[in-house]
């Protein structure tokens, strides 16, 4: 289709141009390679030795706006409310011979620091409160909603430290063991959590 009288040498820059474009296209496609994650092996049935002593029920509103890319028209907005039940307590496997000191009617218990035992966003607690979409947009899919909920779960998980649940769990654990030991006949009970004596008197 090139002019019949065209010099073949004038086609060389065009050929170089095509080769460069093909190379760039190839390199762009190479960027998509993804690492295969390492397989995780988990025992299906495991033992646990954790004593939950504090339960927090928290709620969060997920507020999201879908700002459309250039090839779509119209926004989408959604509000989803979720509730999570968080339990924290003491890992009893960490109790050892040094954790318990008994002399006569006195007992001193050193509890390990409290830890998060479970975070449960129950399916029935997830509610779509509001959804708005432009005329040309489709509703949020469950895959998209799940991404929003995953973000909410991550926010709640990272907020556990600021909620004071671990401190509450330590205090409740101290109260639980104190009342247990008193039932067993010990008159002087002292419970410490990670080298911190807890004032449990009068909290029962």
């Amino acid at each position, binding site marked *: 289709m090139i002019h019949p009288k065209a010099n073949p040498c004038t086609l060389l820059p065009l050929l170089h141009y095509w080769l460069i474009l093909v190379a760039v296209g190839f390199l762009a496609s190479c960027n998509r390679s993804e690492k295969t994650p390492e397989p995780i092996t988990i025992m299906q049935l495991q033992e646990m030795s954790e004593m939950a002593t504090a339960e927090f029920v928290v709620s969060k509103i997920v507020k999201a706006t879908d700002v459309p890319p250039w090839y779509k028209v119209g926004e989408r907005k959604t509000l989803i409310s979720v509730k999570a039940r968080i339990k924290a307590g003491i890992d009893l496997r960490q109790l050892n011979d040094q954790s318990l000191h008994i002399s006569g009617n006195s007992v001193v218990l050193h509890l390990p620091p409290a830890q998060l035992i479970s975070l449960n966003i129950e399916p029935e607690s997830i509610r779509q409160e509001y959804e708005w979409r432009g005329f040309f947009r489709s509703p949020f899919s469950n895959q998209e909603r*799940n991404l929003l909920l995953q973000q909410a779960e991550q926010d709640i998980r990272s907020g556990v430290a600021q909620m004071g649940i671990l401190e509450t769990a330590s205090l409740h654990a101290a109260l639980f063991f104190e009342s247990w030991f008193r039932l067993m006949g010990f008159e002087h009970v002292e419970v410490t959590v990670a080298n911190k004596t807890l004032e449990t008197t009068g909290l029962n």
Partner: protein
Amino acid sequence: MTKYWAKLIKLAIWLIPVIALGILILFLSPRRNKQSLRIDQTAIIIQEINRVAQLFTARYYDELVLDTFKLQPRGNIQRFWSNFSSPAPFSGRVQDDFQRVDLVVIARGTVMAGYDFGLMEPADMIIEGKSIVFTLPPPQILEVIINPSDYEVFIEEGRWSLEESVALKQKAGRLMVERAVERGIFTRSESTARAILTRLFLSLGFDQIEIRTSPDDVSESLRHVPLPG
């Protein structure tokens, strides 16, 4: 005129690959698949703080694939194509107005079992000198956890509401509990609890330890738990 066409063709030879490359990069770009969702930061409200005494003694992990389908009315364009592609004797059926849409999910979950010491009575612990008789309450399913990060939508055709997705999660939860009970979560739970308590009572100086189990059977203990759905 020929010169004009030659110029036009040359211009096309230069432009077409540039446009093609632009489209290729746009579709291959990892940014294309990224969500354009803007999630605002909202507060976490603490609604309740409860004092509990639950001994978690067994954990069961499971992964299930669940699928469901429904019939959804076809759109006008889809109906047109359906009629266009179907041979005449078969067109106009009721089925032509509806299409089957599937929802397939992968749910990973954890079932936790143990004992609620909050349900114990003072009579459940009898102490005489250095001997102790401790009656364990029936083991329970304390948690069934299928969080959003454990849940993956594999295939979603048509439109599925949040409630329909929640119902599928609840079904997954019920199936996981059934499978956990079948695999002996309560037996494992009891043996672990016995080991923990025996060790604790020995450390406290008791030399005669008897751990009894509550007369309630396992099926009875399931009734105490609000199972999902």
